[in-house]
């Protein structure tokens, strides 16, 4: 049945009304949203974002989501306290977590463990929840007032494991609500859209290539239409390179984060392997995007080409964007792409998007 004259008018007046409500919002509402916080809880890092003092500025703090378990001794505990390395005692052991865990692990020539794996709470680590609680407690200040709005990122459900994400999301929500926040989750790719695609009215692809996985979200006017993740990320590359080069993954990660340039030819065996596995990850990402778009019936009719924004630590090495671009052009991509660009601040984009979502919710 077609719309009546009144229906059409109502729809138009609803839009006008929404616009007026928004632009005439009181300062009280704006102040409430300024107390909002955003948190990106990724496989390798937790990044916390809050409003800075300047107009529109942001402050970020981060901690590695890593820990190491060492045998308890008074001496070790004293050293950790002196160096302000985060830790807690667990029976006969000391759990060292956060950024300090990486340093400590290098000193002891050990490998850190992760409370999260493939973007979700690591079921193989019995202390995963406690460690995440510790990291969140250290990183996130108490709310300025009860039920302050907070948004935290969650990955899109990997294929056939919807139940895992429900558990992951519920535990994180409980930890944050216990701190006195009113927390809500936001899809990681969507957070990238909020952070980076404001000028495009939150329309386009947001991609977060993190440690445990790559998250993709196609948004149209801030409404998510496709979101998915692939269980390949920085850790996959580290482990695979480590396995074929017999080098510890901590060192592989250090080379990847500090030296790697995918535009240049590889200079050694490790770089060569890094190039190979990066190509594999990018190919997998592009092909999954293509397949998801082709399989869905929920894409709105789009008359304009869409932008793609890349973010996350795994997308940070030089040349990642260019390789991604090459693959997009090689495959017959089902949607016309206007541009592919890196996020302004790739490591903090998800946290910033979560903050924008929290400010919106507030």
């Amino acid at each position: 049945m077609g719309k009546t004259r009144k229906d059409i008018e109502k729809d138009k007046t609803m839009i006008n009304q929404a616009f007026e409500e928004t632009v005439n919002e009181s300062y009280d509402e704006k102040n409430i949203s300024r107390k909002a916080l955003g948190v990106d809880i990724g496989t390798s890092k937790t990044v916390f974002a809050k409003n800075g003092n300047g107009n529109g500025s942001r402050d970020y703090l981060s901690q590695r989501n890593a820990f190491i378990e060492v045998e308890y001794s008074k001496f070790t505990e004293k050293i950790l306290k002196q160096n302000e390395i985060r830790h807690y005692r667990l029976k006969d052991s000391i759990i060292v977590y956060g950024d300090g865990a990486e340093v400590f692990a290098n000193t002891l020539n050990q490998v850190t463990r992760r409370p999260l794996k493939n973007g979700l709470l690591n079921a193989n680590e019995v202390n995963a929840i406690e460690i995440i609680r510790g990291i969140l407690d250290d990183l996130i200040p108490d709310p300025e007032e009860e039920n302050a709005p907070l948004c935290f990122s969650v990955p899109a459900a990997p294929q056939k494991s919807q139940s895992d994400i429900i558990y992951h999301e519920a535990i994180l929500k409980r930890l944050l609500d216990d701190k006195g926040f009113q927390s809500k989750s936001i899809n990681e790719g969507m957070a990238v859209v909020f952070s980076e695609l404001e000028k495009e009215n939150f329309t386009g692809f947001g991609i977060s290539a993190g440690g445990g996985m790559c998250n993709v979200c196609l948004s149209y006017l801030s409404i998510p239409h496709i979101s998915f993740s692939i269980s390949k990320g920085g850790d996959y590359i580290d482990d695979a390179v480590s396995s074929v080069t017999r080098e510890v993954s901590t060192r592989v990660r250090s080379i990847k984060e500090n030296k790697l340039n995918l535009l240049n030819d590889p200079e050694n065996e490790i770089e060569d392997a890094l190039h190979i596995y990066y190509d594999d990850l990018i190919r997998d990402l592009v092909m999954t995007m293509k397949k998801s778009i082709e399989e869905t019936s929920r894409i709105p009719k789009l008359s304009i080409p869409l932008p793609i924004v890349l973010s996350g630590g795994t997308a940070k090495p030089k040349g990642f964007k260019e390789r991604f671009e090459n693959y997009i052009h090689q495959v017959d991509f089902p949607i016309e792409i206007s541009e592919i660009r890196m996020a302004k601040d790739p490591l903090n984009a998800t946290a910033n998007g979560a903050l924008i979502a929290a400010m919106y919710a507030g």
Partner: protein
Amino acid sequence: MQSFHAKDLPPENDLKKIEALACSISDPVQKLRFIQRAIDQYHEKSRLRRAAARLHSSGYLAGVGLFLILLCGAVMLVFPFKGIPGNHPQTVKEPQVFHAVSYPEPVRTEKNSSSPRLDQEDREPFFSPETPKYLDKLIWMVEKTDDAEFYSNRLEINTKHTIENVPRGYYLFPRGEEAFLQQGVFAGQINGILYHASESDVFAYRPEMTQSIKEYSRLLIRYLNKKKAYHYFIDRFGKVYRLIREDHAAFHSGNSIWADDRFFYLDLNHAFIGICFEGKDFEAIDPSRIQSNGENQPAIVPMERSSINEAQLISGKELTDWLRVKYKIPQHNCIPHGLASVNPYDQLIGHHLDLSHGFPFGFFEISNKYEEPIPAITEFGFTYDNYFMEIFQGKLWPGISLSEKILVMRAGEKQMSVADYRKLLNERFKKVFLWMRDKNAKDKQDRAGLDQERS
């Protein structure tokens, strides 16, 4: 649990409007709030529509069945053995229309003996007494640059966005009973000014919103130029822009009727100059109230105070004065759009309503057109519907009541019922309207043929 989900999207036109409005918001959180609010409202309404449709389809047959059983039962109780009284002529329900005056019975005795009398001031003249009176000021151009013109009455016109449309050329219809059904006369001159409100969204008029206001005006000008909508546009800071050159038509008033003491004008796009004030004088009613109040509730109400501000009015007056001097435009032909706009198919006035209330005629030194007869009613028998009545909550322009008194009087003079007289006028309009439509179509075809020959 997640705060952003897939939702029903509004239709493409509404999405474009949302996108255009969103572009004018620079703060990302504010932008997100607006987009989500606009889509949420649509999504909720769409959900309710679907639920209602489901309810309707599942309950409809059962409901109809039950109703018929009850109806039959009731009929049997009232008319146990006599059957249902039948053979009544089937009546077709007329569309519900309202009139500002109650009509007397048709007068068929002596001419004028019992027809309602109009007061002297109601009766003569139907149009403003000073028609035609032109503004006798002297206004001249004092400076012209590549993108502006300055005039001696302080008027400044930005000409940077001026574009062409189609040269003016239209049919006007000389007044008079005999001349009425004759063919129109082809003309190209400017005979009046039609004032419009953009009815677009407005930011709060506050210093901190300056950038947003300017940006919105910029986008609006772009949009209006694309639509070739008005000759002049006055933004919220009172800046005057010429959007379409004056000797060309603008598409500002497709279906409108006006008349002065010499002619009827049915094509105001060509016959009048369109001046648009950025702003609005109607506001939306809270959607929840619309739903609870039933189907006939209009979604808009007149704003107590129009958003059009003093700066705009001053510029509008300067522009009006200059145009009136330049084209010798009588004050009677300076009118708000809402008073001339009609729906020609249903023969209803008030198709567009911009500036249909609160226009400061005194400030513009023109007579109050809300108090004067509406040519669409007096000359072509147009009327208004329930929807129109409810928008104004029954407080209609005094000119409507006056127009209907004129109809009553004229019907009496012709010894006809008002309904019959209205029908007669409606038929006249149809003839003129169809003649003009066919003629315009033919002219267009001829022009196209000529162009083709030339090329």
